[in-house]
């Protein structure tokens, strides 16, 4: 912050009135930026202090606020602060952090729909409590003028309260009415309207029974279910969609040798684009100048970097590793290979679109039954007594009793409890029916690169290298940012090796690093470049002129928890399959390490999806776990799907569940929780059914007073909610 000296009293009054151009300019610039991060690791009060204090020390940061419920950090910082600085700082403090898209975040912070529901819930709660108090005195024996007065006051509270709180149901019922389909909201609205109407007419005729309290409690419980449902979904939706897109939003375009940063949407076919090392290709293009290596793991599943030279075609989404590349765009925007894979996803028939949730099945059975019972009760009593008032009263009682109050809470209460439990373990449920589908899974298909493995290479056996070679390798590896070099450097430093003195070290992009050691040329790089025969393994070769080159092999490091997850899934009797686009050798090796008996290597994106569809046609329920673009079609057609937070945007969108941390072990537990949740949902339905079996005959027989209705409704709703809470 720079302090500005400004004279308070100016010699010329016009200068004070007209703001200086400088002042205008500084006002036009944004003073602060807001950065939002998802931090799955925060779980306690100490984490809040550590993160807030630690991140506040990053230069330029003005304010840090941790939201523990959503596991997020909001940062207010000077415009020059980049989100990478903050994520790096969070990593140093020991927390994984992923940037969230601040643009979509703004839309959810002013979460109008959620607040609206909460407001309606509050009004319904307030009104139902007041009316309940009045009703209690009526039940305990108030009669004559007092009872009428209490009924009138109840009516005065109930009508405006329901007119405000009941709007969501009314709106839904209207939609259902217009499309001629029966949903849960139709019986709800009918029950409320009929209850209010008969109660009002009873009050006018100074009758004994009014159902104002029942109508209000009904609205209250139903809104509670709706709010829980909304909240669970809102948290999941915001966190999953706001993880900032991995696809690069900006690119560097070269026009007449001038670098110009432009938005990807402005790029046209034929533009020259500069991609720096570490950058992702924004478009499909042909390399014009520069050599490098590219990492295609997210697109194809190959773990080994591929050599890139002029004339070669690269696809959007691939990562440039070592040297700067200039591309000429061949396909932009919708035509890139990234988008073509997205089309493949659109074709794959979604497993979830065919799935009918338990709640829908219950509603489909239940809604017609409610109307039928009420109509039968009305008709029966009318024929028996010829008393329209009494019959209408009984029909209203039947509607209120059968109204799916406990049923409306049965699913949301359980999913809220289960999602909360899974969120604590770092899993985000995006889809409402994901838990039910996850519970049915009997086959789990894993992608390899980036899912079972961390996508980070790890140095293999080094025993065949002498100390001299190790020191040379370290010296050469230090000069490069290539992932293999970084892994080698880390491993050698950990062994306490000191680098040899190598002069004139320089990186030859796409090939390796080269230098002079005691007058001899030393190289660390690709097999062909050092004059060795390439093998199938991922390897770097070290050569000293005049000696045969030595191979340094790398394996892909396992993701933490991968072995545990696979073991736990196998122990629970599920079939585990690995499908990868990587080479057979690498896939077989990993399958042996993890004890996976069935695997498929060199699979194309279409192959994975086809194999999963084939499995499902055999009657299997497949859970797909994957992160790459090549997995998206498979993620879509599987019965349920999980992707890690590090996955490509398209993959996260295609899956129902997002894994927030790097650890894979919660997957097995998630299936267990999902099974328990489904069991609870079924129990809740059974409870609601038992309650109906007891209460409906009473109502039809005309024995159901408002007191019994109130007791039955509240107790069943509370029992259902408590049963759901056992999950937490």
């Amino acid at each position, binding site marked *: 912050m720079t302090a500005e000296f400004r004279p308070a009293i100016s010699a010329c009054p016009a200068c004070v009135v007209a703001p200086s151009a400088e002042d205008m300019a500084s006002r036009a610039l944004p003073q602060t930026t807001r950065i939002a991060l998802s931090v799955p690791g925060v779980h*306690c*009060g100490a984490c*809040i*202090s550590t993160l807030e*204090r630690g991140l506040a020390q990053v230069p330029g940061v003005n304010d840090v606020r*941790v*939201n*523990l*419920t*959503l596991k997020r950090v909001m940062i207010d910082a000077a415009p020059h602060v980049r989100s990478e600085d903050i994520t790096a700082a969070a990593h140093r403090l020991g927390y994984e952090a992923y940037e969230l898209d601040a643009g979509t975040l703004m839309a959810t912070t002013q979460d109008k729909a959620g*607040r609206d529901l*909460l*407001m309606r819930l*509050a*009004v319904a709660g*307030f009104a139902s*409590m*007041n009316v309940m*108090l009045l009703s209690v005195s009526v039940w305990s024996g108030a009669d004559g003028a*007092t009872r009428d*007065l209490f009924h009138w*006051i109840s009516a005065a*509270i109930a009508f405006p309260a329901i007119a405000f709180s009941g709007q969501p149901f009314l709106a839904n019922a209207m939609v259902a009415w217009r499309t001629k389909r029966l949903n849960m909201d139709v019986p709800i609205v009918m029950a409320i309207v009929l209850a209010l109407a008969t109660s009002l007419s009873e009050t006018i005729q100074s009758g004994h029974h009014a159902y104002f309290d029942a109508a209000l409690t009904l609205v209250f419980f139903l809104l509670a279910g709706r709010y829980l449902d909304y909240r669970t979904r809102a948290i999941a939706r915001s966190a999953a969609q706001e993880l900032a897109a991995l696809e690069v939003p900006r690119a560097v375009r070269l026009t007449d040798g001038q670098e110009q940063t432009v938005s990807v949407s402005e790029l046209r076919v034929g533009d020259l684009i500069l991609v720096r090392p570490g950058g992702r290709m924004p478009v499909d293009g042909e390399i014009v100048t520069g050599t490098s290596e590219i990492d295609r793991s997210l697109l194809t599943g190959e773990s080994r970097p591929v050599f890139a030279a002029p004339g070669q075609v690269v696809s959007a989404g691939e990562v440039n590793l070592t040297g700067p590349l200039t591309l000429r765009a061949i396909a932009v925007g919708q035509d890139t290979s990234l988008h073509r894979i997205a089309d493949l996803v659109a074709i794959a028939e979604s497993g979830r679109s065919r799935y009918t949730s338990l709640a829908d099945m219950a509603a489909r059975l239940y809604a017609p039954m409610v109307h039928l019972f009420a109509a039968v009760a009305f008709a029966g009593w009318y024929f028996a007594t010829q008393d329209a008032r009494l019959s209408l009263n009984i029909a209203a009682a039947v509607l209120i009793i059968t109204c799916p109050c406990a049923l409306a809470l049965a699913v949301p209460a359980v999913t809220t409890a289960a999602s909360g439990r899974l969120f604590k373990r770092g899993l985000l449920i995006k889809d409402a029916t994901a838990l039910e589908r996850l519970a049915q899974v009997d086959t789990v298909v894993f992608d390899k690169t980036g899912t079972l493995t961390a996508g980070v290479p790890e140095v293999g056996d080094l025993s065949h290298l002498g100390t001299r070679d190790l020191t040379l390798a370290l010296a050469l590896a230090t000069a490069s940012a290539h992932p293999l070099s970084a892994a080698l450097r880390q491993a050698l430093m950990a062994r306490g090796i000191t680098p040899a003195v190598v002069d004139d070290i320089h990186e030859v992009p796409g090939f390796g690093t080269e230098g002079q050691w005691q007058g001899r040329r030393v190289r660390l790089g690709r097999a062909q470049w050092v004059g060795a025969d390439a093998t199938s393994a991922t390897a770097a070769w070290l050569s000293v002129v005049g000696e045969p080159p030595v191979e340094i092999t790398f394996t892909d490091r396992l993701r933490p928890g991968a072995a545990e997850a696979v073991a736990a899934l196998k122990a629970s009797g599920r079939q585990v399959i690995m499908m990868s686009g990587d080479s057979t050798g690498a896939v077989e090796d990993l399958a042996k390490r993890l004890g996976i008996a069935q695997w498929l290597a060199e699979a194309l994106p279409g192959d994975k999806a086809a194999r999963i569809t084939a499995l499902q046609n055999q009657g299997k329920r497949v859970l797909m776990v994957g992160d790459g673009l090549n997995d998206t079609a498979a993620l879509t057609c599987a019965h349920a799907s999980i992707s890690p937070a590090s996955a490509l945007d398209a993959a996260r969108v295609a899956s129902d569940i997002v894994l927030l941390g790097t650890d894979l072990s919660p997957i097995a537990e998630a299936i267990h929780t999902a099974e328990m949740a489904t069991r609870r949902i079924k129990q809740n339905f059974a409870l609601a059914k038992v309650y109906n079996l007891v209460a409906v005959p009473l109502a039809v027989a005309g024995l159901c007073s408002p007191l019994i209705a109130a007791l039955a409704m509240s107790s069943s709703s509370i029992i259902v909610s408590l049963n759901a809470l056992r999950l937490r």
Partner: protein
Amino acid sequence: MSVLSYLIPISLVLGTAGLLFFVFTVRTNQYDDPEGDAQRILNKDYDDRPKP
């Protein structure tokens, strides 16, 4: 029973006051981070001085 003519309005006024207070808490984002707030109150960081 004439006491009712006082008690009912009083109870309604009190209830409405509670409702309005709740509306105020919703408007001022006090339900955005219930878990965090529960933890923050136990934290001694800003006991002696306000947050800068």
